[in-house]
């Protein structure tokens, strides 16, 4: 007796970069010559370099996944997190049998259904009802199963009124609703979900997450869930794995993994020099002063920012903005200034370097990790002169003296209020 649902044995996946051209043909012929005729090792399958998309490598081949080896238990809800290009989707694609691993093997017990997209195979000319049958059968349901579930599906989607109208007349939100409803009523043993919950309006997202929760908790199905929405991962998944550059970095309780991931993200503390930037107005230097040293800030204290903006030519209007983002990439604080009024008028028609000093008298962010995003653009935000993202990670602590009073689902920002009792 074992209770494994999926066992990944050393999965690796290699991709070739660049275009399919005559070069590919010559590589193919060479590979065939080396492996089939001379019985040697595949010349292009050598253990290559790490897949870091920001750096230029010397080889045309990259490993999208490297020796992924782990196990998912039955009934487990596993989150997969990682940056763009870390191999999350490739992993799901291999598990969904859309592509094959280059080396390694996966064993899965039970029916696997994957939801890499909602509404796959929807035909715009077919009606909603016809498309339920179409999409349902693509996802592996039989006609009988769909017949049994169709009322539930229609009910869940909330597009009953449009059911006999061709899908091409639907709004994009309605298509997503219908698509997800079908998928949510699949009854696989293993459900694979990639980022699809990120679409649809807030109400529907909530409903969808609730449904996934329901599926995993009440029906005891195994769920693999990929999302950039760390909050959703946190609510849904007990355990998670973290992928980086195609390698499995860490595996464990979701809370720990998220903490490790957000704490480990690369934040700039100095500005990068980019030659292209120099020709446009740009940030030359940004200094941020938190109320305590080493990037610690106490709740309610003042925070000051000093910006050096360089204008290589005169502009007649501009806008300066910054946001403070939290670990889940959400933005609790936004500030905008326009050169049409106020202090920033003085940035107009300046040539060369000028300094902007900003002070937030009382920053009332709730405890957690935050970072900055700055942007300098024309007033309508159409031409962005310069932007700096993921800058200066800092931590907010609640109080210098007493212990922190943490709330389970904490707020993001606590406003000051005046309360009078008469």
């Amino acid at each position, binding site marked *: 007796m074992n209770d494994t649902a999926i066992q990944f044995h050393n999965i690796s996946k290699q991709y070739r970069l660049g275009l399919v051209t005559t070069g590919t043909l010559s590589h193919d012929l060479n590979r065939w010559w080396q492996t089939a005729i001379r019985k040697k090792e595949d010349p292009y399958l050598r253990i290559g370099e790490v897949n870091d998309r920001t750096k230029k490598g010397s080889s045309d081949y990259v490993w999208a996944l490297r020796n992924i080896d782990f196990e998912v238990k039955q009934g487990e809800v596993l989150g997969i997190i990682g940056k763009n290009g870390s191999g999350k989707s490739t992993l799901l694609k291999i598990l969904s049998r859309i*592509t094959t691993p280059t080396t390694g093997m996966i064993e899965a*017990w039970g029916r696997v259904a994957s939801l890499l997209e909602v509404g796959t195979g929807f035909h715009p000319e077919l009606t909603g009802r016809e498309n339920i049958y179409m999409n349902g059968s693509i996802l592996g349901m039989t006609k009988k199963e769909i017949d049994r579930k169709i009322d539930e599906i229609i009910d869940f989607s909330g597009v009953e009124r449009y059911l006999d109208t061709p899908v091409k007349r639907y709004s994009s939100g309605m298509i997503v609703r219908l698509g997800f409803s079908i998928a949510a009523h699949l009854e696989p043993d293993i459900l694979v979900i990639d980022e699809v919950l990120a679409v649809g309006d807030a109400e529907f997202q909530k409903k969808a997450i609730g449904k996934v929760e329901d599926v995993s908790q009440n029906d005891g199905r195994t769920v693999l869930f990929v999302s950039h929405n760390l909050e959703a991962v946190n609510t849904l998944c007990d355990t998670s794995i973290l992928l980086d550059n195609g390698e499995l970095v860490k595996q464990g309780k979701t809370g720990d993994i998220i903490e490790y991931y957000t704490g480990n993200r690369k934040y700039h503390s100095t500005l990068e020099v980019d030659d292209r930037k120099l020709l446009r107005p740009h940030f030359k230097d940004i200094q941020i002063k938190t109320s305590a040293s080493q990037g610690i800030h106490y709740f309610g204290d003042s925070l000051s920012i000093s910006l050096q903006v360089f204008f290589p030519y005169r502009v007649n209007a501009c806008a300066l903005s910054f946001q403070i983002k939290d670990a889940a990439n959400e933005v609790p604080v936004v500030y905008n200034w326009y050169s049409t009024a106020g202090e920033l008028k003085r940035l107009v028609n300046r040539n060369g370097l000028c300094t902007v000093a900003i002070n937030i008298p009382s920053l009332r962010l709730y405890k957690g990790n935050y970072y900055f995003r700055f942007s300098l653009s024309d007033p309508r935000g159409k031409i962005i002169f310069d932007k700096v993202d993921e800058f200066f990670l800092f931590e907010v602590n609640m109080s210098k003296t007493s212990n922190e009073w943490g709330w389970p689902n904490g707020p993001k920002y606590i406003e000051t209020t005046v309360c009078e009792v008469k």
Partner: protein
Amino acid sequence: MSDLRLQKTIIKPVNGLLEIDLKELLRYKDLWRMFVKREVITQYKQTVLGPVWFFINPILTTVIYMIVFGKIAKISTDGLPQPLFYLSGICLWNYFSNCLIKSSNTFVANQHIFGKVYFPRLVMPLSTIVSSLYVLGIQLFIFVAVYVFYVIKGVAVMPNAHILLLPLLIVMLAGLSLGVGIITSSLTTKYRDLNILFTFIVQLWMYATPVIYPLSIMLPHRQWIAVINPVTSVMETFRYAVLGTGTFSWLYLAYSFVFMCVVLGIGVVVFNKVQRSFMDTV
């Protein structure tokens, strides 16, 4: 508690050449049916004439052939009325070339769906073969109408017992086009050159098949050249069965049948191998 009823799936880099999961194909029969339905329903949606196009198409083609090959090139029709002769060829050839072109496009045309969800890829070309039967049915109906018209007018044509072979003929055309089609689609996932070439090949193939001419216009000792083409005996058998002209030979037909089985076999093996990782190259 991994109970025994949970079926185990193994995903590995390379499968054996002959590991073809036909049971799985059966499990997806509802999907197969849906694709057929989708193709039939959507073909002429939002056109004014709708399914009437199924009629207009072969009629126009017949008229063009009558002018080009009948009037101008004066190619023999074995003494049969031209509409009857051409229509008999067009019905079967249209079915064959339809299936051929559509199944040769399987991977490229469906890469969007194939990239998002797994199902046995063979379902796609198989459903094309079935949905094209619908068009064939309509065209055969026109053929019968024209046939009856000429019988009433007193043209001496009479179907014979060989008409019972018609289902076999259709199966042979289906199998042949499926085989060639999926081989082509497997080869074109990486290099699209063949796809461009393929349109010409299909056109050439038609002229190599007795569609617009009878086999009898070739000298008897040269007929073997035409008979190498496995579609030839199918066409000739059909004409022989319904119109009483043309060449019928069990030997030729058996050759075509074996040819079809071999091509289909190779096709399924190649397709099965390519389908597993074509998403990386398409």
